[in-house]
């Protein structure tokens, strides 16, 4: 999100610079020559003078602005996923595992269990969801692997000694035919 914000902020600042410089150029040009310099703002002024609020183009532009504005607002106000999960009992040092690190170690703990071929982990502040796939095509065999997989993941999570450990849920699916 920080990278997206940096990109959007760079775009915004460039747009602001361009707009501000354009305004200055047009004001100076209008004062000195009574003509436009780069933008035919006279025709824009005439278009705005003859266009009513009910016009389709005005409605479409307003809806687009509203949707983009609300979308950006939701994106910025949404609480981001944690980048790091703090380790408990480190009063002197701000120590933490990266989110990717926790995901990687949980995934490997589950794939180390015999009979499990792959696993995907989703990690938020409060929950760690592991979805594993068993090598067996039989659903009963896959269900039997759930407890060993959960125990392995929980052991690994406990070993990390996180300050606020997420609640773990593990699902094991059978391999599709």
């Amino acid at each position, binding site marked *: 999100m920080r990278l997206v914000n940096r990109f959007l902020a760079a775009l915004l600042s460039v747009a602001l610079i361009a707009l501000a410089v354009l305004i200055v150029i047009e004001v100076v040009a209008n004062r000195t020559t009574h003509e436009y310099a780069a933008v035919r703002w006279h025709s824009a002024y005439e278009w705005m*003078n*003859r266009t009513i*609020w009910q016009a389709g183009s005005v409605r479409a532009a307003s809806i687009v602005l509203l949707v983009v504005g609300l979308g950006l607002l939701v994106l910025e106000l949404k609480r981001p996923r944690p980048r790091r999960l703090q380790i408990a009992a480190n009063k002197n040092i701000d120590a933490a595992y990266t989110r990717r690190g926790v995901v990687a170690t949980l995934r490997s703990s589950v794939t180390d269990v015999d009979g499990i071929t792959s696993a995907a982990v989703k990690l938020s502040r409060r929950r760690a969801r592991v979805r594993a796939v068993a090598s067996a095509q039989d659903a009963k065999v896959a269900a039997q692997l759930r407890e060993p997989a959960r125990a392995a993941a929980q052991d690994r999570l406990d070993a990390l000694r996180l300050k606020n450990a997420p609640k773990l849920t593990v699902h094991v699916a059978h391999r599709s035919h």
Partner: protein
Amino acid sequence: MHADRSNRAALIVLAVLLSAVGALGVATSYGLFGSAVEHESLLDNGFARFVGRNGEWLWVVVAVLGLLVAAFALRWLLTILFSTDRTATIRIRTDGPGRTELASGALADAVSAEIDSYRGVDAARTRVTGDPQDARLVVIVTVEDSADLPGLVGRIEEQALAHARTALDNPSLPITLDLSVATTQSSRVS
């Protein structure tokens, strides 16, 4: 990066402005302010009339504000593109009248090398952020998945990071330690 909070704040302001203008346009064009208004032209309102009446001085003010906005936006852009939170030196506490400074790269290299030598560590990177007199050590360590993680964390804290604090004679040196786990097992033998 210093600009991250400013970026978010500016984008929130932009989002609020876009939403407000869009909502105003939608409300006006669908007759929420009366059916007469929706049939009026975009410039048939008090604000446009005010601009028309006071154009002589108003556009000069707008141009001056434009210059200020351009200068501010340029500074913001340069901060986004080139600023860093790193410091090149660390000031060592001394009682005498002189000033002693340590190149932060030397400390960072020493800390990284020590951590890198530990069994179970795949890679270590260290940088020094903040001001020379108020520096913070930021250590990023990639550990092997098979490593004894609590033991390794304890060793890093009690040895490498403690050595850094001792070297700077600053037992309360702020330290951030980020541990990542290598997804593929390292072939390195230590």
